[in-house]
């Protein structure tokens, strides 16, 4: 009997340690959610249920309580900006990386090894250290304070990893498939589009999700390269609410904005975790 109890305790040790170290994460997300639907929260205990923090979603105007002053851009305009940014980044990354990945996987050309080597080294090279030079380039090109500028830079810095992932997927498609398409009278472009691309659907999905999330969450480049509120994305809005101390004035509304911002992230987390895991293994992530 005593032995049984002892074994039971022994078995629960890893669970106890895991719960203890994982608890902070769970509590942080719980707090965010509970703050958006409570009048006040003391520690973990909500004081009174309310939906009033969600009411501003009717117009998207974030006001200082009791006044009509708005210091912040409209939530919906900001969301549209964020969406445009994320979708364009995902789209361009898919196109560029599947073109380049295909060539690198299929063709033998002079400088191929060198090119792959460069791509691999760049993939671990931190692009963020180039910020000042990129700022200069955007200014010269007249792209400072435009979403286009941020999009181009994001795509460029994500590309080495994307190309690497796509090359891996193309390597897995048998050459016979392509050969039969060519024999049937496709040219190489048609063969690539009609026969090869449908066979790397998983890779394309992975790049789309990765590119979308990378654009959706982008902060530093928006903070540095965008100067007008009308081009803000949600990351800037949340940052402004935090650093402008608005979140002390109205934590409920701030939490609601953050939750709206999290929606696509949570969806991807719930339904596309396998893709995310696959990317994370090869990705440098944020760091």
């Amino acid at each position: 009997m005593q032995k049984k109890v002892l074994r039971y305790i022994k078995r629960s040790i890893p669970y106890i340690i895991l719960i203890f170290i994982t608890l902070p994460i769970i509590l942080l997300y719980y707090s965010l959610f509970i703050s958006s639907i409570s009048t006040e929260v003391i520690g973990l205990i909500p004081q009174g249920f309310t939906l009033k923090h969600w009411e501003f979603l009717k117009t998207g105007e974030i006001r200082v309580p009791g006044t009509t002053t708005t210091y912040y851009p409209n939530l919906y305009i900001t969301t549209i900006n964020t969406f445009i940014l994320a979708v364009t980044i995902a789209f361009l990354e898919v196109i560029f990386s599947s073109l380049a990945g295909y060539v690198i996987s299929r063709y033998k050309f002079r400088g191929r090894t060198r090119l792959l080597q460069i791509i691999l080294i760049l993939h671990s090279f931190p692009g963020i250290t180039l910020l000042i030079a990129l700022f200069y380039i955007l200014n010269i090109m007249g792209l400072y304070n435009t979403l286009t500028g941020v999009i181009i830079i994001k795509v460029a810095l994500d590309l080495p990893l994307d190309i690497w992932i796509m090359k891996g997927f193309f390597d897995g498609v048998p050459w016979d498939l392509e050969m039969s398409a060519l024999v049937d009278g496709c040219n190489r472009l048609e063969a690539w589009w009609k026969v090869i691309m449908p066979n790397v659907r998983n890779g394309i999905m992975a790049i789309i999700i990765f590119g979308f999330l990378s654009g959706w969450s982008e902060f530093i480049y928006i903070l540095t390269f965008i100067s007008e509120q009308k081009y803000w994305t949600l990351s800037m809005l949340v940052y402004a609410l935090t650093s402008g101390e608005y979140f002390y004035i109205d934590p409920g509304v701030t939490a609601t904005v953050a939750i709206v911002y999290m929606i696509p992230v949570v969806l991807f987390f719930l339904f596309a975790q396998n893709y995310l895991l696959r990317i994370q293994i090869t990705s440098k992530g944020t760091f």
Partner: protein
Amino acid sequence: MSSTLKKYFSRGYLYFFLVPSLAMIVFFFFIPAILTFLIGLTDMDYTLEWRWVGLKNFYQMLRDRWTPKIFNNTMFYVFTTLGFFNVGTALLISILTMHIDEKVGAAFRAIWLLPRITPSTVYALMWLWATRGEATSLFNWILGFLGIPPIEWRLQAPWLLVILVNGFVGASFGMIIFTAALKSIPVDYTRAALVDGASTFQMIRYVELPLIKWPVMFVTAYQTLSLLTSYEYILLVTDGGPGLYTTEVWALYSYHMAFQIYGGGSAQYGYGAALSAILVIIGLILSTIYWKVFRMGELMIEPKIEVD
């Protein structure tokens, strides 16, 4: 169609496919890397004019009275976060989740991925809200049960906050790599150890840990570079403060030199770029070393088919 013409078309596709990516890499990696050094040799300010000053910025870096402090901060930040979280906690989670029910283990690992995919601004907001000075804030409320009086974390424990915020994001990279490595250990090894009567602890110590030595080294090397150059979460949580440069690290110092809005708005792009240039050099050296040490070259298999 003649064969030369065919060849021409084949080549044509090649360049058509490759050009967009090559152009992006040249314009936004190579040219900026070179520009970082060149701007570092000027005292460029908000006018963006090139005024060459030679190595003045680099001499200034040696004389700058903040350099030693920022250097020490950077080392402290990188190695503490790395040791406790990016490697330490990562190992702990991956080993523990391998020794419990598989589905529960996977669920724990999934939760640890959340901070990484959460937008940095939201993640920072959650921490700042949970650690604010009032007694009703999450952290102070919990500590209240232990009889610890409420503290303003951002001001009174800035380093602890910075390391926790970064650590909870950073642990997941190692966790994924270590879990994959542990899963690939052949069953024969663990069975043999079990037959020999090894306890769980002995199994971890003498079978599992030695077998994932390389992944541990890889994560350590890789994350050193990442931590050295990343400053996003520090900027969001303490912005280098409180006070003057308490939690300022090298990469953030460079950012502040160039883009800080308050404090005169000096826009010292020249000095900022010189500080960045140091990181670019370290980044290039370390990336090349990884490439060599971890034999990434072996990943570069030749194409299965040749189209010439």
